[in-house]
């Protein structure tokens, strides 16, 4: 079988076999959940509840009137204990609603099943998606409603469903595809309807042959194409995926819209289906708890607002040797200082393992591996130096803002230079500067 | 304008404003003719001659020359003195004149000279200009002397033509070639900077 792929990139060891055949199981709802009001790309939500309020499962507890935002829902039924800053996996504490779980999982009365979801009009679908607080579940947490509203002058012809799960270790999307193939396909069809696209392509890496075989056997009436991709990192990065499947290049600084494409993660389309068909807002998600530091790795469905510690405990706790805790995949995930952080919508995995406590950094010897592996065609070593020396305009003109922080450069760097960190520094400094200038 | 004492006006050319090490002026002759000490000295003297005399003339004439044609006038004045120096050397020191080749006429475009006219002589009295020119000249000769000594001793084992290194010494021919000139001057500039920063910190 011929597989499609994009130029450059890397192939790190996968470590997926530990969890790839473990089916998704729900994590029992903890006694209290802490739901941050800001879990997405865009403006934070404002709380709709106050201390002492009784809330239902699936009740909207946070909302923003900004277009670039997402609503937040309660993942349990119970009582609001406090609304205060709490640790957040993305860094600084943000306001979060702490709800004590009454254990009854009383569903919010407004939640109803939809009779014929596929007959809804695009406007309605978008509204449901927005109200359900759905964001991209691949990790970036981009508000999905925004993604489903392409500008009028940019017609969408293709929907790409991202089933790559190119990050090593993670298997939650793999399991979702195996266990809920119909939901995913129907969710994808909803996306197609919402955007007016002609065709859906589901891209799967060829390390998930079982999913491919399963989907090949099924017959849908939708304009669907299932495409096998080479197992390579970062196959699932939006722009690279588009390049691999359609040979289209998203312009620099542009979005998939610009080439008539919308990309959705499999988890997201499943959530869209759930929201439209069952009226269920996004209050839980699938994730992988794995890594050598986790006693018994699992794929879980976790309520948003459960603590990492809850999930880890359910998986047998941490090994003594584990000294790094990461949210997301090992390539792009965020190292956590504590397990006392809530699971948010963007949490695709909780990983722990033992890492050497020393990093030996050598001088860059211009071996060029970062360049040959950069999927975006950048020269990371040079950008790193620009960033280090604050040559921001040079960095910008050489494309530092095009960096997707996939980590391929740093993975392949023999000198052990924290390239991604430096590039992030440069990117943030440029954004800071622009903000300052426009202010 | 802050006026310095006569001594300070002179001294500044030796180090603080040394044309070669501090101001990076007159690099072409500095590099080209320093393969032997004798050439360096001859070049230094010729440049000094031109610098001093044109400083005198320029400072004396400063009121008469309109600013629009000052550069042209300075160039003519400088070129006149350069020609005198050139002819004089060709007449009385033919071997040196031959080994310096076109670099004596090139004094005319040495930035030190035009630079001093513009920066100093055109604004100062004849006396001050003379002292300034003397200081700059000394600084220039000094720089040439340092560079040419290093190059001649390492490159030929001689100083002013006299053998100074023992028989064991193998001359580093590179030092009298262009490459050696560049590298030596580069290192000397760095040394000058180090000395400068050391003295500065000591002052503080």
């Amino acid at each position, binding site marked *: 079988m011929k597989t499609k792929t994009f130029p450059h990139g890397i192939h790190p060891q996968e470590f997926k076999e530990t969890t790839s055949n473990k089916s998704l199981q729900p994590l029992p709802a903890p006694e209290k959940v802490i739901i941050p009001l800001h879990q997405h790309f865009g403006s934070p939500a404002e709380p709709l509840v106050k201390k002492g309020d009784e809330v239902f499962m699936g009740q909207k507890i946070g909302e923003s009137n900004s277009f670039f935002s997402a609503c937040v829902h309660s993942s349990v039924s119970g009582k609001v204990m406090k609304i205060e800053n709490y640790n957040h996996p993305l860094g600084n504490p943000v306001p979060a609603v702490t709800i004590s779980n009454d254990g009854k999982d009383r569903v919010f009365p407004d939640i109803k099943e939809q009779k014929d979801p596929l007959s809804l009009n695009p406007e309605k679908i978008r509204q449901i998606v927005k109200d359900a607080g759905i964001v991209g579940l691949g990790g970036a947490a981009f508000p999905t409603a925004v993604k489903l509203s392409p500008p009028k002058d940019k017609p969408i012809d293709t929907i790409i469903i991202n089933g790559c799960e190119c990050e090593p270790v993670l298997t939650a999307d793999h399991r979702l595809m195996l266990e809920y193939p119909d939901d995913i396909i129907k969710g994808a069809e909803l996306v197609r309807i919402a955007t007016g696209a002609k065709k859906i392509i589901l891209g799967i890496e060829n390390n998930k042959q079982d999913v491919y075989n399963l989907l090949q056997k099924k017959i849908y009436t939708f304009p669907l194409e299932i495409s096998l991709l080479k197992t390579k990192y970062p196959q699932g990065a939006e722009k690279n995926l588009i390049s691999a499947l359609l040979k289209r290049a998203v312009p620099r600084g542009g979005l998939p819209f610009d080439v008539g494409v919308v990309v959705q993660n499999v988890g997201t389309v499943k959530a869209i289906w759930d929201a439209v068909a069952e009226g269920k807002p996004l209050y839980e998600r699938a994730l992988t708890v794995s890594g050598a530091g986790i006693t018994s790795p699992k794929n879980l469905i976790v309520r948003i607002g459960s603590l990492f510690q809850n999930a880890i405990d359910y998986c047998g706790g941490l090994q003594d040797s584990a000294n790094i805790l990461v949210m997301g995949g090992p390539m792009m995930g965020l190292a956590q200082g504590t397990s006392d952080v809530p699971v948010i919508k963007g949490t695709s995995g909780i990983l722990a393992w033992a890492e050497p406590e020393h990093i030996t950094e050598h001088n860059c010897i211009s071996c060029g591996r970062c360049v040959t592996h950069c999927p975006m065609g950048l020269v990371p070593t040079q950008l790193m130096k620009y960033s280090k020396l604050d040559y921001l305009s040079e960095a910008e003109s050489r494309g530092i803002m095009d960096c997707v922080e996939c980590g391929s450069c740093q993975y392949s760097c023999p000198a052990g230079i924290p390239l991604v960190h430096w590039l992030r520094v440069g990117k943030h400094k440029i954004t800071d500067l622009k903000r300052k200038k426009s202010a | 304008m802050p006026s310095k004492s006569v001594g300070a006006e002179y001294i500044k050319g030796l180090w603080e404003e040394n044309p070669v090490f501090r101001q990076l002026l007159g*690099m072409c002759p500095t590099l080209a003719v320093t393969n032997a000490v004798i050439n360096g000295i001859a070049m230094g003297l010729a440049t000094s001659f031109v610098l001093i005399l044109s400083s005198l003339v320029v400072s004396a004439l400063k009121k008469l020359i309109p600013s629009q044609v000052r550069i042209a006038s300075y160039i003519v004045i400088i070129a*006149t003195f350069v020609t005198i120096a050139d002819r004089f050397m060709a007449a009385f020191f033919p071997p040196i004149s031959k080994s310096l080749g076109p670099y004596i*006429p090139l004094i005319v475009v040495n930035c030190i000279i035009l630079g001093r006219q513009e920066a100093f002589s055109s604004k100062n009295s004849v006396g001050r200009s003379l002292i300034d020119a003397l200081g700059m000249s000394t600084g220039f000769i000094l720089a040439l002397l340092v560079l040419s000594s290093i190059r001649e001793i390492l490159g030929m084992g001689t100083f002013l033509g006299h053998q100074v290194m023992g028989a064991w010494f193998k001359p580093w021919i590179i030092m009298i070639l262009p490459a050696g000139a560049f*590298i030596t001057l*580069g290192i000397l500039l760095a040394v000058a900077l180090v000395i400068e920063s050391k003295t500065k910190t000591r002052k503080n």
Partner: protein
Amino acid sequence: MELITLFIAAILVNNYVLYYFLGICPFLGVSKKIDSAFSMGLAVTFVMTITAVASWMINHWILIPYNLDYLQIVSFILVIAALVQLVEMFIRKISPPLYQALGIYLPLITTNCAIMGLALLAALKDYSFAKTVVFGVGSGLGFTLAIVLMAGIREQLDLADVPEPLKGAGIALIVAGIMALAFTGFSGMIN
């Protein structure tokens, strides 16, 4: 054939900067960015070519017939200054974009020993008219090559951890030294 070898020799073997040490000031001063170095190189090449022509004419039509060889220095420098001024004004009037790219380097060239050196060297070597012109163009291109290479290296060194006292002119001179070493490989090629 002779002209071709002269041309190649002027660029590579007897490179203007690395062999004759002419034009060191702009070589060190304007070699921080590739773009400006390239413009400077072109400006120098251009002026060198005209200078070659003009100085040859003065030398052979005025100075030599009237036995005025001692006026070489004065007349050359004046002619160069005047020419450069003229060219600058001309370009400014004719093509402002070209002036922006090239013209701003012209004042810097007047008192540049590269130009004067060319006139003097051509006179000293007693080149024919054609040879003088070829020598002028070749030397200018040699200068351009050296300064652009230097600028490329300096742009890269800008990102390097060069020891503090060597930063700027110091390291540039050392690079020039090693470049001179590399260019040595071409010596003996003029036959």
